[in-house]
């Protein structure tokens, strides 16, 4: 059990700054997910916490103690790697016990711990096998087992599910979540898949280009994205964006680039007249209506239970609408859609920041 804190953490490789000052606090017992596109620095950040990567600037604290100069071996964390990184020449049993042997654990204790963990993860039948004789899912379990058996203060996961097929990924997702509930340790989990982040996390840190864009609970990020990037990254299907500006005469009206107008409730957003804004609206929040924004339908997918409509606005923007049930709309038609103002997000186009007033 431990809380992990990052204070203005910076990482440079030569002249290249990869992590540009990150502040985060992970309370003990929390499941925190670092999510972001590839190259955003999330894995580097994790490795800096683990001790495998040097910290160029700032501080990492575990339970309030700075650990910048503590080696990976002594930080009391364990890690599950993307490629599992099982020792290929050792049996599953040896893989599990290697770490314990390194810290001079008595033989009988090792034996008990390995057996308990193996039973818990249902790999007790595989103890004498080599990693190459295991399936992907089994390897994943062994990798997790190796992390668990040392009873660390916290767990670090580096995209652990990215090598599994879709079905297995869903299954393992559930298992890692239940493992977290059972052990109650702090966990930091790195992924580029926002679905994994949404389903597993207590808290999500969205990273981009070495900076945390937003840190909060999953639904908080979904409902109140702090900026355009988070809005576009979190949520599936992806949010639609329309460009426009706040009307010069009325603060509650937005003039879209197509010339169409949208009403927004007074007081919900802050923004000055003529300010360029980006309107975000999730595909599931759009409604078909008599009047509203014009859309030329370019494609329709009928899934039975729901329908996806793809269209283009008058100013040439692509827009997606997910409607419940089946739809009579056909390709080539011209339809109207309404944007419910309570589900609408508004961002300053220039800075990307949300205009939602707190």
């Amino acid at each position: 059990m431990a809380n992990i804190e990052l204070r203005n953490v910076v990482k440079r490789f030569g002249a290249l700054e990869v992590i540009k000052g990150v502040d985060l606090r992970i309370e003990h017992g929390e499941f925190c997910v670092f999510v972001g596109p590839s190259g955003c620095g999330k894995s580097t950040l994790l490795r800096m916490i683990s001790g495998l990567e040097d910290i160029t600037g700032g501080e990492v604290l575990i339970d309030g103690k700075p650990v910048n100069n503590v080696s990976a071996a002594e930080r009391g964390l364990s890690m599950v790697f993307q490629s599992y990184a099982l020792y290929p020449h050792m049996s599953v049993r040896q893989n599990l016990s290697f770490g314990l042997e390194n810290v001079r654990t008595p033989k009988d204790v090792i034996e008990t711990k390995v057996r308990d963990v193996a039973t818990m993860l249902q790999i007790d039948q595989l103890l004498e096998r080599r990693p190459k004789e295991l399936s992907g899912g089994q390897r994943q379990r062994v990798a997790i087992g190796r992390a668990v058996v040392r009873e660390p203060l916290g767990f670090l996961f580096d995209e652990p599910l990215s090598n599994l097929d879709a079905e297995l990924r869903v299954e393992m997702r559930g298992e890692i979540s239940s493992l977290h509930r059972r052990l109650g340790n702090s966990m930091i989990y790195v992924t580029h898949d926002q679905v994994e982040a949404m389903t597993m996390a207590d808290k999500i840190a969205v990273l981009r280009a070495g900076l945390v864009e937003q840190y909060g609970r999953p639904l908080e990020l979904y409902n109140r994205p702090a900026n355009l990037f988070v809005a576009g990254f979190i949520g599936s299907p992806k949010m639609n964006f329309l460009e426009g500006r706040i009307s010069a005469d009325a603060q509650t009206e937005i003039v879209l680039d197509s010339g169409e107008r949208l009403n927004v409730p007074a007081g919900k957003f802050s923004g000055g007249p003529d300010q360029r804004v980006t309107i975000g609206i999730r595909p599931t929040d759009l409604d078909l209506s008599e009047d509203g924004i014009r859309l030329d339908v370019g494609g329709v997918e009928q899934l039975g239970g729901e329908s996806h409509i793809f269209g283009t606005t008058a100013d040439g923007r692509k827009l997606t609408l997910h409607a419940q049930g089946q739809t009579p709309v056909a390709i080539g038609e011209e339809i109207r859609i309404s944007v419910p103002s309570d589900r609408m997000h508004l961002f300053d186009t220039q800075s990307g920041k949300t205009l939602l007033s707190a």
Partner: protein
Amino acid sequence: MARIVAFLTRTRAGKGRMDWTDWVTYGYLLFGIVLMFGPVAWLLLSSFKTGAELERFPPRLLPVAQDTLVVESYDEPLPLFKMIAGDQEGRTLAQIRRVGLIAQMVDPAEPETRLKVNVADREPIERIAFAWNNYTDLFERLNFPLYLWNSTAITLTATAIMLVINSMAAFALSKYKFRGKLTVLALVIGTLMVPGTVLLVPTFLLVSQFGMVNTLWGVIIPGAATPTGVFLLRQYMITIPDEILDAARMDSASEWKIFWRIIIPLSAPAIAVLAILAIMWRWNDFLWPLIVLSENDKFTLQLALNSFQGEFLTDWEKLLPATVLTLLPVAIVFMFLQKYIATGIASTGGK
């Protein structure tokens, strides 16, 4: 010309009947076997021949020895002859001594009677016999065991040292980022360019300064840090995923433990190849031992073999079995590990 050309190229795959290009191919291969293995086989057969048989011209294919028999009242066994002409025709006699064209013979059945016969009237009774004593003599009368020991000691020690220090260096150069790494790599590549053969004089000075002239260490140490070995191992170790090392670090393994418990077992195939190569190099090494070792009792097999052949007279009776014993370990290793050796040598480009 066209024929040679056609056989130099491939033919359609999977046809049932041999056409003439196949005949040429197998002819070439047969010729290859005779040319490549023939001389070795001839050496092997010859090494079992007695001294007299070795002198014989023209030589016979198989080792042959004359039958002998212990006859009463003679200490040594006497050679047996079959009489093919003259008075005693048809009898089997043993020779006591020979004087010019006349031989004193005796019938083993009646040892008291001495017979004088013309040497032209008789024919030796011979059978195929392997003169194993050529080999046993090497061990009993010559310093051969000492040379064998010297060679073995040098080969094993040098290989062990080389494997350890080369794999350590290869690990550092493949899995660490550190200041100066490029310089070290460049220096190592640079030494690949300068073959050891051109550094004989100063290397000898150093060896003599360390008092290692005429010691086995003088042969072992200078060649232990081969750039070839470092490179071979480094190329292999680079392919080991870094994540495995990181996992071991998370598992509280020290860097040395990572090397010893993770890297070494995972590099086993490359280390095996290098070990085989190193054994070959050291066992067959000639020039450097020739320079360092000046006294007979420190000689390696190769030096001893070379010294067995005199300036004018060569004692083939000893030399041939000694040669066979020298190539035997290589031949055995080759038979079992042909594939490893082939890939190893192809990947390092020899030495």
